[in-house]
């Protein structure tokens, strides 16, 4: 099945606000004959230094913390995404802010105490961006009055995921984020 969403080349440029962050912008185009609701809030961002690849998920987490053995979740909260509505053939930019250093927490790694093992991941050059983007025929945030876990489940299962890897080009300056 052809992708429902065409993803353009990613442009990487410095943020214009005095921070060391970079802004990554790419164009998405609705390649279907229908209206598409596109998840526009970036979630998990990771970086692979070896391949200079940024991995970004514009979608709900694929698994829940409850799936981890030895963890009993007491409370988690649904987070509704911003969404971009695209008519047939219409394009719009998606954007994310990338700090100079990302962080990862490995819940299973020993830390030497009760604290968690948080590791820094410096983000060097970005040559490509690996994307997972949730799309839906209906609004992603049109959620009824449901229990929190039901909302999260709906956010995870209702949309379809379009995946793709695009090249990234760096620019010395760019539009304000």
């Amino acid at each position, binding site marked *: 099945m052809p992708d429902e969403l065409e993803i353009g080349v990613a442009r990487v440029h410095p943020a214009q*606000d*005095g*921070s060391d*962050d970079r802004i990554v912008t790419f164009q998405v185009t609705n390649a279907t004959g229908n209206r598409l609701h596109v998840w526009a*809030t*970036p*979630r*998990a*961002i*990771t970086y692979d230094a070896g391949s200079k690849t940024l991995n970004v*998920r514009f979608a709900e*987490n*694929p*698994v*829940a*913390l409850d*799936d*981890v053995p*030895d*963890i*009993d*979740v*007491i*409370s*988690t*909260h*649904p*987070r*509704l*995404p*911003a969404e971009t509505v695209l008519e047939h053939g219409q394009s719009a930019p998606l954007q994310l*802010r990338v*700090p100079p250093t*990302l*962080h*990862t*927490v*490995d*819940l*299973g790694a020993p*830390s*030497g*105490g*009760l*604290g*968690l*093992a*948080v590791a820094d991941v410096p983000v060097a050059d970005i040559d490509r961006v690996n994307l997972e983007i949730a799309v839906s025929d209906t609004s992603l*945030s049109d*959620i009824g*009055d449901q*229990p*929190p*876990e039901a*909302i999260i489940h709906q956010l995870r299962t209702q949309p379809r995921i379009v995946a793709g890897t695009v090249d990234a080009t760096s620019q010395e300056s760019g539009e304000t984020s």
Partner: protein
Amino acid sequence: MTYRIDQSGTPATVFANLFTIVSQDLGLGTANVAGDATVQAVNYNKDPANTTATAQRVLDEINDPGTVVATGLPSGTTITLHLDTGDTSIDITGNGVTFHDRLANVIRVLYDTGQCNGSGIFAIGLDGHTHIPFPNPVILYHEMSHAFHQLRGTVAATSALEEQAAETDENVMRDQLGLPERLTTDHTGGCGGGGSGGCLVVTAAYRSEVENPARWLHAVRGAMLPRYGLGGQLFSQAYAQYLEFSADIAASMRVNDELRAAVRSLVVDPLLQVYAAAAARWLRTSVVQHAAGQLDRPMPAAVRHPALTPPAPELASAMAAILHSALTSPGSLRAHRDIPDAVRRVIPLIAAGSIGQLTRWALVEPLALYWELGAEGGDIAGRLPAAVAQRSADWLGRAPTLYRNPPSDPARLADDLRAVLVRMRLSDEEQIALSRRLVELHSRHVDYDLSAAIRQAGFVHVAHIEARSVSGPSSEGGAG
């Protein structure tokens, strides 16, 4: 409950959020944990004057058995999960989560202290659709509520009911902070919108979260005026007046760069300098270390590096003239002719700030002091400390209001005033001015001898002033 702050992630922010939750009570501190350098223990010796519900909750929780570890995470931090199906990364951007870690046998609270990379986090307001701010201390308090229920065995039967219970607790905190309440039947939220809920004009003036001095301002304000007692009542009244005009002006600033630049250079940065001079004069070193050092809120550039080049004379003179009018005959503000465009742009803000007695006193008067010095030429920042010292007693003695409701118990009032002296080095003259103003404003609202309660708190007795040489704040060790 034993609180631990995880030293990985953003521990300074976690402490700052707890400090806000206990209403800036200096009794909150941290200590090393023997044999575990990955966490710090939170201890809390509550100020008797502090009667806020959230502070009491923290005290109750700390005295309860069980361990909670709070970890603040920068936005975008991913959590690696090892599952039978392989490793997966999830994130908690814009979120907080509380869980029982059975391996370590602790309750863990993890939350995004980066506010969605600075875009803000929203919850749903009472009308069911408005996005309201969800600042970090409120997120932490919400998660602490879940942790408390778990440790006490009172977690509700369903997740929806448990959320409702935590959101009801959360609204107590929101009331204290002057934030809109949350709808407790809507458990959603997200990134963006919601507003800062803080100093709207300063945030709009700086736009970038990275250099936004509102965080520093918040730390300084919290150090001087905690959210309880006299300081809390004074601040909440002033903030209510500020909110009446700041949202509209901040909205205009966000779409008008010339206005934003003018407000920043002519109003915000000068006020930051005056407040920094006042903080340097009044704040005791121990308080600065506690509130500024541990809170890790960097001093903004406008304070660290006040403009090396003085403002253009015509700009300074025009600002001084406008501010003089605002304080003496506000109706004539718009009659000023031939003034620089930048000054003309900030007139609506000055006019709005002059309407409320408290904002006129707390915002417009200090700004006028700065620009009076500016109109005289030379190094403004260098002369500010002396100018602040010269006028501070008179300024304190003209406070438009102090308490909204003075304590009905003289011992409580004495506790409140002692708390002021613990934080601030007030000179004899300043203590007398403040004492006189308290009596003028509130003696008829209480049925006890207000002067006696003030003396009991350790304030300089009026009769002593003639025998003393007043040249500056009292020494660090003594409170007058």
